[in-house]
């Protein structure tokens, strides 16, 4: 009896659920069916649409100018497919052999040109351009095989060459002037004046000096600038009979650092006091290097810390640790994002080009002084270009004054300044 009751209840429940599901699903199924019926005429229209024959698509393949043989420009003449209602796009395909295995390298709708930025200067490529419609393609004949060409001179950068020649000429002129014994004036740079004071303090306190020449390798000019200043610091250290410790992230910087310090000790007449242990490699890993340098700082408690070179996220970590051990800190970098941290946490900071100027300022060597003076000429040129450019643009565009239109046009061409679309 009980079993029968359970069977009846189960059957009723299943039937009820089935009816409920049917009630829910039926309207959706009916709606989907009506949608399909509604859509079918359009689909049929698309399927039977005809693309008129407007003639062949003529394509041209040209080398991309002023590059290292890495690009080709694929252009075509549109016979009128763009104006057809179902037109989607032009599709450009690259072939590297005679087979039909091509690779689509770009599409364009209105602009009849695509740049293949991955073309080779050693393998010939041919191209086809296809006008794409919903269910049809009009494909051009395959172009003649073409290779990208290497240009030795970037003709679009002649402004850089002219400015470069001008600045180099100024540098040579000032170097020769300095060699003839004429005194070249350089304004004082506060951070550098403090070097002797900082080294003297370390000597008095009997504590070492820490020098970090950034975390980049020898192919960064900031590292080179840091090493130049290291020479002066090491000479003072040798004269004061103090100690210097230089952890390095790159092995080449370690080698160069040893050379610089050894030379400085020789110049100071203390070659016997030099030891290779003054400069040591830590690790190439950025934060591994920082962890080790922090450890050195808190254990050896250097009285003076120099951070001169290219720094990244570790700048504030180093400067804050130096602050916590109450060291005098002199920093210098040309990394814009790290300068704020050094300015905030260090006693003196060489900002940007001051780092590069520092070596000339410290050495007082004619070649370096002349070089710095020549660079000042370049800066003066930039200032003049900015002021003349600003005034010319305003007068030429706002009041249509002819002379300034000529100057504006010349500056825009020289510096590749784009005129905005009005």
């Amino acid at each position: 009896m009980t079993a029968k009751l359970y069977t009846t209840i189960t059957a009723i429940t299943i039937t009820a659920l089935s009816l409920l599901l049917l009630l829910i699903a039926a309207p959706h199924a009916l709606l989907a069916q009506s949608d399909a019926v509604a859509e079918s005429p359009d689909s049929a229209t698309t399927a039977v649409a005809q693309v008129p024959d407007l003639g062949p698509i003529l394509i041209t393949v040209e080398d991309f100018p002023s590059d290292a043989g890495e690009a080709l420009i694929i252009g075509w003449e549109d016979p009128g497919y763009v104006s057809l209602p179902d037109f989607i796009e032009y599709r450009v395909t690259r072939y590297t052999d005679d087979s039909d295995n091509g690779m689509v390298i770009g599409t364009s709708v209105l602009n009849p040109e695509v740049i293949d930025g991955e073309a080779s200067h050693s393998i010939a490529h041919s191209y086809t351009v296809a006008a794409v419609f919903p269910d049809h393609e009009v494909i051009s004949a395959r172009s003649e095989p073409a290779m990208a060409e290497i240009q030795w001179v970037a003709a679009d950068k002649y402004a850089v060459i002219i400015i470069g020649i001008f600045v180099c000429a100024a540098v040579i002129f000032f170097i020769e002037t300095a060699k003839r014994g004429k005194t070249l004036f350089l304004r004082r740079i506060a951070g550098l004046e403090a070097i002797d004071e900082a080294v003297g303090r370390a000597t008095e306190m009997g504590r070492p000096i820490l020098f970090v020449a950034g975390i980049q390798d020898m192919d960064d000019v900031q590292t080179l600038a840091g090493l130049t200043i290291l020479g002066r610091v090491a000479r003072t250290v040798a004269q004061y009979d103090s100690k210097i410790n230089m952890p390095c992230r790159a092995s080449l910087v370690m080698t160069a650092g040893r050379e610089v310090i050894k030379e400085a000790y020789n110049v100071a007449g203390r070659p016997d006091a030099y030891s290779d242990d003054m400069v040591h490699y830590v690790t190439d890993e950025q934060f591994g290097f920082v962890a080790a340098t922090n450890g050195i700082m808190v254990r050896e408690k250097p009285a003076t810390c120099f951070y001169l070179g290219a720094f990244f996220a570790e700048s504030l970590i180093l400067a804050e640790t130096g602050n916590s051990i109450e060291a005098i800190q002199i920093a210098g970098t040309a990394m814009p994002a790290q300068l704020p941290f050094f300015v905030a946490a260090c006693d003196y900071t060489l900002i940007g080009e001051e780092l590069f100027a520092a070596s000339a300022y410290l050495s007082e060597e004619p070649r370096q002084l002349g070089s710095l003076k020549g660079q000042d000429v370049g800066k003066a040129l930039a200032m003049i270009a900015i002021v003349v450019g600003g005034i010319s643009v305003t007068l030429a565009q706002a009041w249509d004054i002819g002379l300034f239109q000529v100057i504006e046009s010349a500056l825009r061409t020289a510096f590749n300044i784009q005129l905005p679309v009005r």
Partner: protein
Amino acid sequence: MQFDIGIWIAALLTLGIISFLYKDNVIYKVSEAIFVGVSAGFWFISLFWDNIYRKFWVGVFPDPTSGKEPQYILFGGVLLGVLMLSRLFGNKAGWISRWPLAFIVGATAGLKMITFLASNAVAQINATVGNFVAAVAAPTFAGLVTASTVTIGTFCGLVYFFFSKEHKGWFGGLAQVGTWVLMITFGASFGYTVMSRMSLLLGRIDFLLSDWLHLIK
């Protein structure tokens, strides 16, 4: 909950490094030594396979089926590298290692000169005058103020970095404006970078709380 030894080591070393905030201690020293040692070893292997094997060996002795020509010019780099090792033979041959150093420094200076000129000097002038072009072509009050501020700021910034004249008188005044522009820029950059560093810290805390302790799902 699955036990993952790697996550436990990473979490404990993270805490070990963070313990430096309290003071230099033995846990920090151990974490530091592991970090430095492991990373130095990792970089040695990485540089060996990337440079000596993939760049040099594969370049000079390419797979015959690849159709690539042997690049014998790579022997130049190897020669410079071998010359660096001359330091191992003391003062007698040590001076030879200065040649590759001189090559690197000279080549770097030459290569970077034009790049810096193009990206720093010409691009700076382009951007500054370009601002004016845009502002005058479609003049709005905000656009003109922005273009003027950028132009004056750039000009005065350049005056600050002019080393041939003492910062006195009217020139000193312009340099002072340049200093203000620099400091305001640094202030904005400071705030922006601090926020990005906070995201790094949050990433680490997230690792500890979710991957290690599973407190965050």
